[in-house]
Each structure stands twice: as structure tokens, then as C-alpha cells.
């Protein structure tokens, strides 16, 4: 058991899979010699050599296209798209190619690959380098999406993603890279499609993801300590497949639900979850499901403004409190 940063967990997760399977290869901009712009892939070039860990030009379409062609014909590529926002310049692969090739060919073509992206705000990078792009990628039948919030989940879900026979978008949160957590020694393999209840509670369920997970936990602490409100906190972890059993199970116990989303409101992942709860757990609900999100604005660069925009512990606390008391 070791304390590991979320950043180092990325390299460890990739290394675990590359050591296991020679077909796992890794490509992206500045990922090899420089160890990644977030330093999350330091050491991989040295360990696995320049044929398996490859720097690319600034050609995101070539990166994802090449990953797909390799995946179709026998490799298991991991591709990095540096900032999640850049998914927009290679979106054709996300929307039209990866997820559809198996279906269109009646199962002839497979596409086992992983696309890692650095997601989210908090670093004062402004509107084009801070976005939470879960809702750019989760709507495509055929694609899977995971978003780990802790070092141990990074390692285990990376293994699950690499071993999965479907294309997986692996969302890392930039503002979590420096956080640490316990990670057991030896091989770790987690399971896609599983949420985790990180804190049990009886009054309401907080559903969070990525950087919103530690904030939800902190808000839950305060709600318990200061207001006696007992919150269950669910880390969604996997958006596709979605662990609706865990989510609906929690709502069936608490009867109230809040989603805590870093993305701006419109069509955030919480909308899908709320629509499922509203349909399938309608009679379990004692009050309206509430979505706590970044407001409908691009992210500003100034630290003061950015901190106001993204849901904070304080805002979560107050929104839940107000809603539970009303």
C-alpha cells in the first residue's frame, strides 16, 4: 500500500497494462520524452521504449484515427488528447467512427481503445482549456465513458478500460492530479459500469463525478455536522455504462436526490440521471430532484470568477440545505 498522487496513478495504471500486454501502445502530443504536459506519463518512454510510447505532431485527428486503425487490426492503443476541450478538433472519431464501426459492420469490426483527456476547471486556464466535457462524449451508442476521482480508481479503471473490447473515453480531472490517495500494491483491475457509494446517508443522495466528488463529500460532512442532514454520496465513476442500480437504490433509501455537476447546466450528465430517476423512481421521491451545476456561462479565467462559477462546497451545502428545508 502506497500513497500515490492521482497524476502518478495515471502512469502506474498505464504501465501496469503495458507490462501485461505488448499490444498496448500509447501515443499523443509530448507524452513520451516530456512525460506529458501534466507530467502524468513520466517514465513510460524509458520503461517501454519509443516504439510503444510515441510523441505525435499536433494532429488530433491523426492521433485518434491512427488509434482506431490500430485497434481495428489488433492493437490496444491508448491515445492522449491533452486538454479535454481539444476533443472538439477530432470529434468525428468520437461521434461518427469509434462508436459506430462495430454496429455498421454487423460486428465485423472491433475498436478496443482508450482516449485519455485532461478535463475540468480550477487552474485559471480560461474558457478553452477548462471545460468538463462529459456531455460531449456520453451520448454515442457504442462508446463508453469513465471519470475516476481518486488515484486507486485511476489505476483500476485504466486497467478496466484498456482491457475492455469497446472504445472508452477516460476522463482525468486536471485539478485532481496533485491529490493523493492510498493505492494497494500489485495489480489492480476495477470494473466499468460501477458507481461507488463513498458515504452512506439517509436523508438525501448527492451524485457527483470527478472534482465534484471531494466537494460533495465535504459538503456532506458540513451538512451532517452543522445541520444534522445525512447525505449519501455516490461517485458515478462510469457514465457509460451507467450504474443505475446503485443510483436508484440510493434514491429508494433517501427519497431525495441532488446531482453535482461541474459542466454548465444545459444537458449535463445530471439531466440524464434525473430523467431516469424521475421516470423510474418517481414514487420514491419526496421532493424535486435538484441539479447543482456551473451556470450557463463559459468559464472565466480570473481565479475569483472561476471559483464563483464552479459548484463549491459552500454552494452545494446551501443548495441542499435550502431544498431540504423547503
Amino acid at each position, binding site marked *: 500500500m502506497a500513497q500515490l498522487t492521482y497524476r502518478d496513478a495515471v502512469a502506474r495504471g498505464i504501465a501496469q497494462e503495458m507490462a501485461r500486454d505488448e499490444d498496448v*501502445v500509447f501515443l499523443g502530443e509530448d507524452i513520451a520524452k516530456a512525460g506529458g504536459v501534466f507530467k502524468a506519463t513520466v517514465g513510460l518512454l524509458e520503461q517501454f521504449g519509443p*516504439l*510503444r510510447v*510515441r510523441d*505525435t*505532431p499536433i*494532429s*488530433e*485527428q*491523426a*492521433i*485518434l*484515427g*491512427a*488509434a*482506431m*486503425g*490500430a*485497434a*481495428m*487490426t*489488433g*492493437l490496444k*492503443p491508448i491515445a492522449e488528447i491533452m486538454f479535454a476541450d481539444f476533443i472538439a478538433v477530432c470529434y*468525428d*472519431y468520437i461521434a*461518427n*467512427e469509434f462508436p459506430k*464501426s*462495430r*454496429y*455498421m*459492420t*454487423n*460486428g*465485423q*469490426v*472491433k475498436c*478496443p481503445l482508450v482516449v485519455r483527456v485532461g478535463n475540468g476547471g480550477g487552474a485559471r486556464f480560461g474558457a478553452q482549456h477548462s471545460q468538463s466535457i462529459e456531455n460531449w462524449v456520453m451520448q454515442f*451508442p*457504442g462508446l*463508453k465513458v469513465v471519470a475516476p476521482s481518486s488515484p486507486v480508481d485511476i489505476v483500476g479503471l485504466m486497467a478496466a478500460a484498456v482491457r*475492455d*473490447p*469497446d472504445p472508452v473515453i477516460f476522463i482525468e480531472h486536471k485539478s485532481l492530479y496533485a491529490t493523493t490517495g492510498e493505492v494497494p500494491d500489485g495489480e489492480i483491475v476495477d470494473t466499468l*459500469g460501477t458507481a461507488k457509494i463513498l458515504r452512506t446517508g439517509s436523508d438525501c443522495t448527492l451524485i457527483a463525478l470527478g472534482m465534484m466528488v471531494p466537494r460533495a463529500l465535504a459538503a456532506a460532512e458540513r451538512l451532517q455536522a452543522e445541520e444534522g442532514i445525512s447525505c449519501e454520496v455516490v461517485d458515478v465513476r462510469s457514465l*457509460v*455504462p*451507467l*450504474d*443505475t*442500480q446503485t443510483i436508484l437504490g440510493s434514491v429508494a433509501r433517501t427519497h431525495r436526490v441532488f446531482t453535482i455537476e461541474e459542466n454548465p447546466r444545459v444537458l449535463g450528465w445530471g439531466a440524464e440521471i434525473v430523467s*431516469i430517476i424521475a421516470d423510474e423512481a418517481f414514487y420514491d421521491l419526496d421532493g424535486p430532484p435538484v441539479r447543482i451545476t456551473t451556470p450557463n456561462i463559459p468559464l472565466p479565467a480570473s481565479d475569483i470568477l472561476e471559483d464563483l462559477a464552479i459548484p463549491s462546497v459552500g454552494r452545494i451545502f446551501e443548495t441542499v440545505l435550502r431544498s431540504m428545508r423547503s
Partner: protein
Amino acid sequence: MAKSPKQDRSVTAVVNDDISEAKRLEMFRAQVLMRQAEQRAFDLFLENLVKGTSHLSLGQEAIAAGVAAAMEPGDLSFCTYRGHAHTLARGVPVEKVLGELMGRDNGLMRGKGGSMHLTSVEHGVMGSYAIIGAHLPIACGAAWRAQYKGQSDVSVCFFGDGTTNIGAFHEALNFAVIWKLPVVFVCENNLYMEYTPISEVTAVEHPAADRASAYGLPRIIVDGNDADEVYRTMLEAFRKARSGEGPSLIECLTYRHSGHSRADPAKYRPEGELERWKLRDPLTIYKARLREFGVSEADMKAIEDDVKRVVDEATEACKAAPFTSTDILFTDVYADGGWAWRN
């Protein structure tokens, strides 16, 4: 502008050359098969037995034939929505292609993909891609796999003149060169994107060849209506690819006899253009070639008749085949065979 076909091509009889008679007959048969199968697809559309869209390669068959003849089993093809010809050229049965167009259970993908997505992994046809440019990087990836695994296959990527103006073209070419990938890019310059002449929207005369130097590649232009020329050029490109010398970019000059897609009457053509190109129909050229090398009219006729029989039989089989069964609607979204996105 590459507008007028060569019409003054003087043919000199040659008895022996680098291409065997067997190879020539293979290429002839392939061209006849594509021509007849695609004409049949058009007839079936007129009978309302083919739904959706389809894009024919009538007039461009020499390219698919010449490339396929140079390929080894195990080499991979990446095609566009205009992919019937390239799929047939790799040996995929006519019945499976027509069946797919007709939405029958015997179709290549049982109707799930349709005309624009013909795929037969077993024949090395790794898919037909309908979003312009997407498959150029994908072909690079397949070639990367071969390079990484030390496998000797080459990936061939077909695309049109119009495709050279999209970003993915540029990214793929640069990528293939810097990684020295065993991939061959075959641009079929048929002078038009959908309806707009390529010369009106392109900064250079030869949309592929005049860009080759931007990737450190030689400028290669071939007569795309002459299967032999295509074949010879491809042999050299394959040799390069297999010996680790990296990719090639080949521009084949050709012309499509039909409209862009089944919906297009092609009224935008200048008067006489089609007629001039029809004089250089790849089948006309190739028959002359065969004659030159002593193949008899009877032998040619026998091949044409045999192909007709194959296409007729395939047509009957497709008409008799059941429509695709509805239980496949939900299969193969994910690798577990199903479509479940939640538990």
C-alpha cells in the same frame, strides 16, 4: 486543369512485357464484374429494390482493378462511400454486396451498414467510410500496427479529389511520412467533388500530386483509366511500403460516367465532357490492350458472359433472400453483442 483525357494515345503492339496474361485476365474480369454489378445495382434501384443512396464507380473501374491486382492476400483496403468497386475487387461476392444494398439477410452486414459502409474483414476490406477524410488516419493506424508487429501487410486508402481539401488529409499524410508507415494513398481524381468541379475549389491543378512535396513525397500521376498503369505504379508503392520506405501518394486521373449518387443527373457537366471520357472508357482501353497481347474476342466474350451469369445469379439470390431479420436491430452495439448502456 486536368480536364481532357488523353485521346492521342498511340498503341504499339508489344508481345512480351512485365504483366502476365493471367494477371491481365484477372484485371479484365474484375473490371467487367464491377461494371456489370454496379449497372445491376442501378437497375435494382430503378425497380425500387435498392433503398437509400448509392455511389457508383462506373468509368473508374481500372483503379480498383489495378490496385487490387497488386495487393497480396492480407493487405487491407479502406474505402469510401463510393466503395462497391473496391469491395468487389477484393473478391467479396456480388451477392453479398447487392444483398447489403437491398437490405437482405444475405447482405455483407445484413443491412445494418448499407451501400456507404461495405465491409468484409475476411477479405481485407476494412470498411467504407462516409465522412470525408476520416479513413486516411485510420488507414495510418492499421499500417502502424503492421509496422509495430513486424507484419508485412500494406494498407491501401482510396479517396477522391475533393477529399484532398479536408484537414484529415493533411494530418494523415504528414503522420504517415514521419512514422514511415506502410500505407498507400490512392486519390481517384474524377474532376468533381459532388457537383462542383475540383478545379474551382483547389489551389493547385493536381489536388493530390501537387501536394506530395508538402510531405516530402514524389509527385505521382497515373492514367486511372488504364489498369496496367495503375497496377505497375502500385507494385512499386507496395514494394516501398513493405521494405520500410514508407507511404506513397498516387493520383489517378479518371472520370465517373454516372452522377455523384443515384439522385444526381449530373447536369453540371460541360457539353461533350462525358462523351470524350467515354472514348477512354477503361473497358474499351483494356479490351484494346488484351487484343494487343493476343487475347481473342471469344475469350473476352466468355469472361463477360460468365460475369453476367454470376451477377444474374447473385441478383436472383438476393431477390429471393429474406429481408434482414429485425432481431439484429439491437445487436453489436457493444462487444458483448448487445446495446445495454446501463445496468
